[in-house]
């Protein structure tokens, strides 16, 4: 909040060391609240229209608009110290890394297919990565944990038996 005042170099308060914030009129907050209620009803309404995969995408976009309004106005990030914005956005970026790396794994796993003795992508039936030592464990040990996503629990070292 103080940074908003830093931009006013001629502000007589700028250097007195006291806290000065711009007090927004209550009507600003009420308008934001009305916008948030409106967007909530939009989300509910659109969820009842069948748009396939677009439903999820739209839900994420509308929620993000709502979250941005809350962060910018209710949480005062709009006129706050920019360093606080950096912390907030920085956290979001690391969340993005968390999502992308995890999806890159979990969305590219095959499932163990008994009859073919290999891993396949369930939706398409194509061969999936995850071959090699894993099959060897399954055949030798015979403890076929055919768990849907757990076929590769065996430690690689077991293959050297």
């Amino acid at each position, binding site marked *: 909040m*103080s940074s908003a005042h830093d931009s006013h170099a001629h502000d007589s308060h*700028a250097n007195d060391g006291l806290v000065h914030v711009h007090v927004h009129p209550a009507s600003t907050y009420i308008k934001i609240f009305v916008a948030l209620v409106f967007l909530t009803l939009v989300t509910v309404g659109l969820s009842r229209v069948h748009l396939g995969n677009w439903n999820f995408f739209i839900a994420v976009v509308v929620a993000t608009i709502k979250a941005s309004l809350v962060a910018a106005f209710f949480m005062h990030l709009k006129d706050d110290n920019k360093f606080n914005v950096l912390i907030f956005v920085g*956290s979001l970026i690391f969340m993005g890394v968390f999502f992308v790396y995890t999806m890159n794994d979990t969305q590219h796993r095959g499932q163990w297919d008994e009859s073919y003795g290999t891993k396949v992508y369930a939706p398409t039936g194509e061969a999936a990565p995850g071959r090699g030592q894993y099959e060897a464990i399954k055949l030798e040990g015979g403890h076929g944990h055919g768990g849907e996503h757990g076929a590769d629990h065996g430690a690689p070292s077991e293959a050297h038996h």
Partner: protein
Amino acid sequence: MTMQAGHGDDNELHGHHGLPYLAHHFETPVQQFDAAKLGMWLFLGQELLFFSGLFVAYLVFRLWYPDAWSVCSHELDWKMGTVNTLVLLFSSLTAVLAVRSAQLGKKAEVSLYLLLTIACAFGFLIIKYFEYAHKFEAGLLPGSYFAPVAGHTISSVFPPGSAAYFSIYFMATGVHGLHVIIGIGVIFWIWLRNQKGEFSAEFFTPVDLVALYWHLVDLIWIYLFPFLYLID
């Protein structure tokens, strides 16, 4: 910027010592204010990362079990979810109005808005209680406790992954609900301090910070609501 405000300005500085709310290790009130906000934002950043684990789990399992997600989502009461969303949004409005009143030094208004925020928080929990009660009755419970009771559920068939949906449902709403309960406690504490007259137009940092926490609780719910209740 504000950090330098105190240096080379001794006349100003002397005026600040003796301010009851200024801790001795801060040069000026504005330095103290900025430091407190920075600390709060670091905490909120941590909160986001903390919740992100649940959101990642949600997405992984939703993509693995889209049918289960769709069927189970319809077991939730979207009307109750919508009302709860509106209650939380309204509580965010009262929280920010409490901050505004604090900035203006209007003690009575601050107390009123804080109490309204607490009332909304209780309203949210009461609605959540009715939702949970129904889930328990219907056997829509997490993981190995998942045992749907015929006649109590909307769907008669639950695809594989349904138990995972309710694990994530209870974990996400449970951890969020815990934040609501903690929020009630800290807002009440700030209300008490406000009643004692600790805050003024010059010093309202704790009101500001508790509202930031409350908005984050709202922010998380803004995502949880469509993700859990509104799956086509």
